[in-house]
C-alpha cells in the first residue's frame, strides 16, 4: 500500500494536512466499518500469523516444504510440546480419531494420519504452504500482468493487438488444465510445489494483464489525464502521478480475490498429485492421501477441506469488503 | 372557479438517511386546473423531482411522504388523519396501492422522464413497450392497441411509424425517443401529464421541436401538464402558471406573465438577473451569491436569507409561508417573503444584514466529516 501513499505525499508535504479521504487510512476505516469485511480481515490476519509463526519459530521447517522430517514437524509447535503427546519411535499409532470421538485422545486434538503424525500440527503447517503459494503466485501474476497490461494499455495499437490476442488465447484453455500441463512439462515430469507456484503465477499473468489494461484504459479516458497532457506534463509523470495511483485500487481488490482463487487451484493441483509432494503438509496433498482412507477414517478428509474453506473465505470476504470500500459510488 | 384537477396541500416528503433527515419537499401547496400547464421550476436540489414523484406515490425507500394531502378529481391520493391515540395515520378514503396502480398511474396521471436514453427498455421494441402501456391503461385488445400505438407514433411526428414500431430504442435518436415517451403519455389518455425536465437532455433545435409538439397536442387533447424544469426560458415559453421552488419550498407562485414582469420574490428576481439572455446582450451578470445549502440542515428563518440581497435581520428569525400578495387574471400571486406588507413581520424596521462575502470563496460543500 505504500506505493499509493508515497505517490500522494511525495511532493514536499503540505503543512496542515487535512485527512486524505481517498487515502488508504480512509479505505481501511471503511473496510473496518463493514462487519463481513472486518471478519474477513480477521481471518486473513489469523492465517497469515499462523503461517508466519510456523516459518519463523521452527528452525526445522525453515528449509521449506518437504525438507522437514514429519516427526520433527509434530514437535515443532511449542504449544503442543508435551512429552506425553509425542509418540516415541516405534509406537506411532496411525488413524487416531479426533479428540471428541470416543476413541480420541486430547493429545491429538484432530487425531493422527495413517502414519501416526499429529493431524492438527500438519493442518497448521499447511497454512504456510497455502499462504505462500497464494501470495507468491499472485505476486508473479500481478507483476507480470502489470507490465504486460500497462504496456498494452498505454501504447495501444499494434502492441496492444498482439498482446491481447495472446491473452485471449491463453484464456481459452481452462486454467487448471493449462497449469497442470505447464507444470508437468517445465518440471520435466517430476512436479513439485515450486513448479506449481511458478506455473500458476505465469498462467495468471494474462488475467492480470487484462484487468490492468482495462483499468488503465478507463483511467486514460478521464479528463484529468487530458488536462495533465494539455498542461504539458510528461507521459512518464502522467503514468506515475495519475494513472498508477488511480488504477491501483481496483487491481488491488482483484489481487486479494485472486489469492483465494490461487489457493483453490493449487489445492486442486496438489490433490491430483501435481503440486506439493509428500511428506509436505499441504492441505490439498493431505486430501489426496486421505482420499484412500475415506471408508476407514472420515476425519482425515474433513479437516484439510475445512482449512481451505476458511482461508479462502477470509480472502474473499476481505476482498469484497475492500471492493465496497473503494467503490466510488459508496463514497458519496 | 371550478374544482381543480389536482390539489396539493402542505406536502412533505422526507428521506431518512444515515446522515439525518433530508427534508426534500417541505410543505408545498399548489393546484392544477384542467387544461393548464403548470411549471415547477428550481435549481438542482430544490426538490422539484421528488415533489412530482410524490404525486404518484412513487417515492422509494428511504424516502417517504410524511405529511400533507394530495387530492385528484376528488379522490385522495394521499391524506393523513389523527388516529384515536393521537398518531397520524392514513385516511380510510386514501387510495390503496393497488388502486393507485390500476386507476391513477398511467391512465389518469402519466409521466415523461428527463432522460430519453435510459427511460426505454433496451431489449424490447419501442412499439412493444408502447403497446404494453396502452393495453394496460386503456383495456384495448392487442391488435387495437398496436393500431393505436402506431397512430400515436405518427401523431408525435415519428416518420414511417409502422416500420419504427418494430425497432429498438437504440435505433432512435434522443429527440425521437423523447417523442416516443410523449406518445406513451398521450396514448394512455390521462388527464394530467407530469413532464420531468423533458427537454433538458436535448439539443436546442430538438427542444424547440418538442415544445412545439407538446403545445399543439396539449391544445388538441386538452391535457393538463405539470412541467418540471430548471430552465426559465422553457417556463416562459410553455407554462400558464409557475411555482418556483427553493430548498424544498415553493417561494413564489404566479401566472407566468406576472412571475416575469411583476416578480415578488427576491430569489426569482435574482435567478432572472443571473441568466444571460439569448435575445439581448447582457453586459454584466448579477449572480446569486453562494450555493444552495443542503436540505439536511436548512438555514433558519427564510431559507433563502443567506444568499438574499434584500435580507434583513428579521429574515433570520421568521420563516415565511407563501401568502397572496397580488391578484392577476383571476389567479392569486403568492410569495414567501416577509418584505411584503401582508406578512407584517416588521421587515421595514429591521436592520439589513451585512453582505457576507464568504460563500463563493467559502468552505467547501459538505461531506467533510464522513
Amino acid at each position, binding site marked *: 500500500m505504500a506505493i499509493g501513499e508515497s505517490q500522494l505525499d511525495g511532493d514536499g508535504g503540505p503543512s496542515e494536512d487535512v485527512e486524505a479521504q481517498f487515502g488508504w487510512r480512509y479505505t481501511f476505516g471503511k473496510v473496518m466499518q463493514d462487519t463481513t469485511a472486518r471478519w474477513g480481515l480477521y481471518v486473513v490476519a489469523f492465517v497469515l500469523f499462523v503461517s508466519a509463526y510456523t516459518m519463523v519459530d521452527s528452525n526445522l521447517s525453515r528449509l521449506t516444504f518437504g525438507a522437514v522430517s514429519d516427526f520433527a514437524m509434530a514437535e515443532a509447535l511449542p504449544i503442543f510440546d508435551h512429552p506425553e503427546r509425542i509418540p516415541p519411535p516405534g509406537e506411532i499409532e496411525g488413524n487416531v480419531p479426533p479428540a471428541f470421538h470416543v476413541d480420541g485422545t486430547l493429545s491429538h486434538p484432530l487425531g493422527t494420519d495413517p502414519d501416526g503424525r499429529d493431524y492438527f500440527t500438519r493442518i497448521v503447517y499447511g497454512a504456510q504452504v497455502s499462504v505462500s503459494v497464494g501470495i507468491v503466485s499472485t505476486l508473479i501474476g500481478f507483476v507480470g500482468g502489470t507490465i504486460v497490461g500497462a504496456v498494452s494499455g498505454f501504447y495501444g495499437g499494434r502492441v496492444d493487438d498482439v498482446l491481447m490476442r495472446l491473452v485471449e488465447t491463453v*484464456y481459452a484453455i481452462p486454467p487448471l488444465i493449462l497449469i497442470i500441463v505447464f507444470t508437468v512439462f517445465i518440471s520435466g515430469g517430476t512436479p513439485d510445489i515450486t513448479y506449481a507456484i511458478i506455473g500458476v503465477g505465469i498462467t495468471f499473468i494474462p488475467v492480470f494483464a487484462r484487468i490492468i489494461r482495462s483499468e488503465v484504459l478507463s483511467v486514460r479516458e*478521464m479528463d484529468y489525464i487530458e488536462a495533465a497532457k*494539455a498542461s504539458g506534463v510528461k507521459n512518464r509523470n502522467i503514468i506515475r502521478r495519475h494513472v498508477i495511483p488511480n488504477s491501483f485500487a481496483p487491481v488491488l481488490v482483484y489481487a486479494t480475490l485472486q489469492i483465494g482463487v490461487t489457493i483453490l487451484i493449487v489445492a486442486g493441483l496438489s490433490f491430483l498429485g501435481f503440486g506439493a509432494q509428500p511428506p509436505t503438509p499441504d492441505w490439498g496433498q493431505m486430501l489426496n492421501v486421505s482420499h484412500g482412507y475415506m471408508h476407514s477414517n472420515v476425519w482425515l478428509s474433513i479437516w484439510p477441506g475445512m482449512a481451505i474453506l476458511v482461508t479462502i473465505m477470509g480472502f474473499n470476504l476481505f476482498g469484497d469488503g475492500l471492493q465496497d470500500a473503494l467503490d466510488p459510488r459508496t463514497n458519496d | 372557479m371550478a374544482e381543480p384537477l389536482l390539489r396539493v396541500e402542505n406536502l412533505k416528503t422526507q428521506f431518512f438517511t444515515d446522515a439525518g433527515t433530508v427534508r426534500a419537499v417541505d410543505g408545498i401547496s399548489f393546484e392544477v386546473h384542467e387544461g393548464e400547464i403548470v411549471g415547477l421550476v428550481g435549481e438542482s436540489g430544490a426538490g422539484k423531482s421528488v415533489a412530482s414523484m410524490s404525486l404518484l406515490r412513487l417515492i422509494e425507500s428511504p424516502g417517504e411522504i410524511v405529511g400533507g394531502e394530495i387530492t385528484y378529481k376528488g379522490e385522495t391520493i394521499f391524506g393523513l388523519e389523527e388516529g384515536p391515540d393521537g398518531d397520524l395515520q392514513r385516511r380510510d378514503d386514501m387510495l390503496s396501492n393497488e388502486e393507485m396502480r390500476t386507476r391513477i398511474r398511467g391512465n389518469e396521471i402519466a409521466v415523461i422522464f428527463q432522460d430519453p436514453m435510459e427511460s426505454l427498455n433496451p431489449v424490447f421494441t419501442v412499439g412493444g413497450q408502447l403497446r404494453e402501456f396502452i393495453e394496460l391503461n386503456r383495456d384495448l385488445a392487442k391488435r387495437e392497441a398496436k393500431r393505436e400505438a402506431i397512430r400515436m407514433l405518427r401523431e408525435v411526428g415519428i416518420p414511417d411509424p409502422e416500420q419504427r414500431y418494430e425497432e429498438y430504442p437504440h435505433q432512435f435518436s434522443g429527440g425521437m425517443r423523447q417523442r416516443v415517451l410523449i406518445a406513451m403519455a398521450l396514448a394512455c389518455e390521462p388527464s394530467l401529464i407530469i413532464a420531468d425536465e423533458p427537454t433538458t437532455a436535448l439539443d436546442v433545435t430538438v427542444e424547440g421541436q418538442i415544445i412545439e409538439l407538446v403545445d399543439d397536442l396539449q391544445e388538441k387533447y386538452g391535457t393538463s401538464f405539470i412541467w418540471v424544469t430548471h430552465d426559465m426560458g422553457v417556463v416562459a415559453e410553455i407554462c400558464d402558471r409557475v411555482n418556483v421552488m427553493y430548498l424544498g419550498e415553493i417561494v413564489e407562485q404566479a401566472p407566468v406573465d406576472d412571475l416575469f414582469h411583476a416578480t415578488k420574490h427576491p430569489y426569482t428576481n435574482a435567478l432572472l438577473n443571473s441568466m444571460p439572455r439569448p*435575445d439581448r446582450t447582457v453586459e454584466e451578470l448579477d449572480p446569486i451569491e453562494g450555493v444552495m445549502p443542503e436540505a439536511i440542515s436548512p438555514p433558519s428563518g427564510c431559507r433563502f436569507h443567506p444568499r438574499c440581497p434584500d435580507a434583513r435581520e428579521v429574515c433570520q428569525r421568521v420563516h415565511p409561508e407563501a401568502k397572496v400578495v397580488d391578484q392577476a387574471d383571476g389567479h392569486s400571486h403568492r410569495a414567501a417573503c416577509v418584505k411584503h406588507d401582508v406578512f407584517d413581520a416588521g421587515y421595514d424596521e429591521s436592520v439589513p444584514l451585512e453582505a457576507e462575502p464568504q460563500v463563493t470563496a467559502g468552505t467547501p460543500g459538505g461531506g467533510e466529516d464522513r
Partner: protein
Amino acid sequence: MSRASELGSEMTGEDVAFGDTLVEVDGLKKYFTQESGLLSGLSIDTDEFPPISVGRQHVKAVDDVSFEIRRGETLGLVGESGCGKSTLGRTILRLLEPTEGRISFKGDDLAELDGEALRQKRSEIQMIFQDPQSSLDPRMKIGQIVEEPMRAHDMLDDDGREQRAKMLLEKVGLDPHHYNRHPHAFSGGQRQRVNLARALSVNPDFIVCDEPVSALDVSIQAQVLNTMEELQEEFGLTYLFIAHDLSVIRHFSDRVAVMYLGNVVELAEKEELFENPQHPYTKALLDSIPVPDPRERGARGVLEGEVPSPLDPPSGCRFRTRCPRLIAPEGYEWTDEEWEHARTFMRAVKRRTFEPMTAAETRAEFFGGDLPRGEAGEIVADAIDLVATDRDNGDDAELEDGVNWAGATERLLESFAEESICSQERPDYEIEPQYGTGVHRAACHLHR
C-alpha cells in the same frame, strides 16, 4: 526560470499585440476512423480483428475549418451536440492529431510540432474542461493540482509554486487555506474554479474552454462566468469559448462561430451574428431558444428531420438536407410557391411522414391541386403516382404497402435536390455587416 519573474504579473505581449491574430486555424480537418460496429461489445473482445473485410469509414468530425482568434478576445464556438466543436477545440490544442491543415499560434504551426517542442509550447496554451467531476484527479490535493503544470514546465521552486498556487486560488475566488483539500470536498462550481487556477498557473496566453459552465446551475454559472471575465482582463487572456448555450455565448463572446456537422457555417461579431444572422441554420438555432420572457413566446422548432451522419455528410452545403431555404434547382421554371410545395413534398416523401393516399389526395395535400408547370410538374406527377394508393406499381419486391417510397424519393432527389447549387458547391461568402465593422462570413449560397 525566466518566467518566474512574471509571478502574478500581467502578461506582457511577447510578440503579438492586443487585437492582432494570436491563433490562426486554416483548413483544419480531423477525421476519425470508424471501427465497424459489428464487432464491438463482444465478450472475448476480438473486436479489432477484421472478420470479413468491412471497409473502414471516416467520421468527418471537423472538415475544413478556418478562422482566426485575436489576442485578448473571446471567440465563441457554438453548435449542437455532435457538430464537432469539442473535437475542434482538442485538435487545436493538439490533444488530437489533425488530419490536415494548419494551426498557427504566434507564428508556429502547432500541427507540425511534436514531442518535446510541443510539450514546451503547452505552457502557453491551456484548457478548461466541461466535467467538474472527472477533470480533477480525485487522489490529488487541489494545491498539487494547481502546481502540476508549473512543475511540468520547471517554473519556480517548491515554495514559489506553493505561493503562486495560493495566490491563484484566491484570484479564482477560493480560500487559499483549502490548498490541502481533495477535490471531492468541493462543489461543481468550486471545482471549475480549481480548473481555472490550474489553467492560469503557467501564465498562458490562450485558453480553450470546453463548455466550462454547462454542468453548473444557472446561479453558479453566472458566478463562474464573471470570474472568467475578470481573469481575462487581469491576465490578458484569449479564450476560445465552446458552448451549446447561445445565451451564454452571447453574454461571453466577442465574436461567434456557428458549427454544423463539422463545418463553420457562420462567423461574425457577436452583435452582428445575433441581430443579423445570415445563415438559415443560425436563424433556426436562434428561433429555437426559449426566451425567458412570456411576452416573447414563439421559440419553435423550425427545423425538420435530424442531423445527417458525419460518416457520409451531404455534398455541397452540409445543411441543405434540412434547410428551409434550399435554393431551387436551375433548369426548371418555378414560381417560389411551386418550389416550396415541391420541396415540402420531396422531404415528406423522403422521410415518409405521411400515410399513402390516392394521387388526387396527395396532389391536393401538397400542391393545392395544381402541379408545377413543365418538366418539374411531370417529375412531381411521376413521384405522386409512385406513392399513390390508387396506382398499380407492379410487383416490385421493394414496395411497402403497395407504395414505392424508394422510387419516388430517388426520382425527386435526383431531379431536384441534387440539381440545386446547394448540393454542388460548398458555399463560403463574405457579407457586409450591419452591426459593427468585423468580417461576417456565411456559408450559404443565398449570398452568392
